[in-house]
């Protein structure tokens, strides 16, 4: 990208040439929250599966499809399988129709359905949220939230939270290397690792906290607290009527689906 193209990119609305990635961030958030909570509130495998399939259909049409399915697979193994094993162990030998036998003990159908409910609730909830987080830039979301009335201080806090995590991790690695150079063992047995926690963790936390003073002065120098409209480098397109309608429909569907799901499933 040439310098001129880079400059020009800020003169227009941010576009990624993908229908889901270009969907208005706030409308997308409302849509995903509605379906995520539908899966959580109803807590039945039928609803979880429907939300999971919807999320999969959306994700497959975005550039983030590979990351989506890898993360979902990892979360399934890390988050679901252990809980399912615990649930099956607790319910082994319970009365009721038998689904199968495990280590010589009967596993009832109710336990298997309970596990399916849990798996699809998690996968549905996780899936729909991942389609949001993998396709939305936080700065675009914050820009849109400011447009709908959120205070610049709040959006600043959200954005600096995400950038702060990356910078503090860098600082941690730097301090770890420094302490190692000073002769503190940071790798080895469990005892060695536990002993190295404080010499690594404390300098990072204390130096980051005391550094806040300088950053406060920098913020004051740039008139952060001044009254008036804040300017932004990036421009986000306002929500189209269709996007607003999709978000509203998702909310209605969530409320109606939650009531119907709790009553009939």
């Amino acid at each position, binding site marked *: 990208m040439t310098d001129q193209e880079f400059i020009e990119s800020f003169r227009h609305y941010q576009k990624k040439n993908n229908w889901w990635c270009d969907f208005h961030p706030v409308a997308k958030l409302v849509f995903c929250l509605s379906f*995520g909570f539908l899966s*959580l509130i109803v*807590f039945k495998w039928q609803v979880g599966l429907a939300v999971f399939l919807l999320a999969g259909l959306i994700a497959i049409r975005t550039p983030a499809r590979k990351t989506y399915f890898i993360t979902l697979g990892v*979360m399934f193994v890390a*988050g679901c399988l*252990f*809980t*399912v*094993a*615990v*649930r099956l*162990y*607790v319910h082994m030998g319970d009365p009721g129709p038998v689904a199968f036998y495990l280590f010589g003990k009967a596993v009832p159908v109710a336990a298997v359905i*309970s596990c399916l*409910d*849990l798996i699809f609730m*998690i996968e549905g*909830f*996780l899936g729909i*949220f*991942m389609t949001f*987080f993998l396709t939305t830039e936080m700065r675009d979301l914050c820009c849109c939230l400011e447009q709908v009335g959120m205070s610049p*201080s709040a959006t*600043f*806090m*959200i954005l*600096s*939270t*995400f*950038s*702060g*995590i990356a*910078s*503090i*991790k860098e600082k*941690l690695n730097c301090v770890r290397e420094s302490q190692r150079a000073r002769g503190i063992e940071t790798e080895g047995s*469990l005892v060695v*690792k*536990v002993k190295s*926690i404080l010499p*690594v*963790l*404390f300098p*990072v*936390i*204390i130096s*980051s*906290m*005391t550094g*806040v*003073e300088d*950053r*406060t002065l920098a*913020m*004051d120098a740039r008139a*952060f*607290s001044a009254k008036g409209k804040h300017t932004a480098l990036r421009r986000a397109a306002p929500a189209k009527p269709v996007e607003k309608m999709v978000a509203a429909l998702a909310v209605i569907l969530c409320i109606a689906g939650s009531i119907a799901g709790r009553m009939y499933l």
Partner: protein
Amino acid sequence: MTGKKKKKKMDNMTKLLIPLAVAINMLAYNVLYSTTMVILGDSIGTILVGAICGPVPGAVVGVLSNLVNVIKNPVMIVMLPLNVAFGVVSGYLSKRKIFIRLWKTILCTPLYGFIGGWLSGSIIFLAMGGDFWGNMASVFVGIPLFHAGVPKYFAMAIGQLLFDCIDKAACLVLVYLIIKSLPDRFLIKLPYGRYVTSKQYDESEIEF
């Protein structure tokens, strides 16, 4: 003068400390949990900001920490009220000058343990279909208690409470040590800084 209470604005230092505290929560979790497997440490930043900046910034840290966790594991959204409660409780305890002495700080462990353990156990129990969740507390304490005849809800809540008390005791000690390591001239500039340091300053002595 109007009878209405004037709305207090958050100062810039607090605004900068909030994102930092969220990052501290993430950092402490990565460092402590990967090493000890018992101490989570993901509320150190929330308790710290609650103690030195007050209940509202503490609650904001709780909300933001939960939102960051939600990206990794969206089911964690149900724990949002607990993170908020840690920040609020820390603010109120700080105002009673609890964080000045180590023994007073450690004595607050059951309160934090109750919020993070018993209440989180209850939320998990309700949100996850009234059954055990696959975590260490359930496997090592909850399920054995359940098999010993304790009702499922109490077995799970007791397990969570025990594990969380260990975590919160370590977090509170770390928060106390961090506060003691921070220079007084830094603490005194923060809204609740005067409640966590025993030194007294005149306003004229402070350089803002």
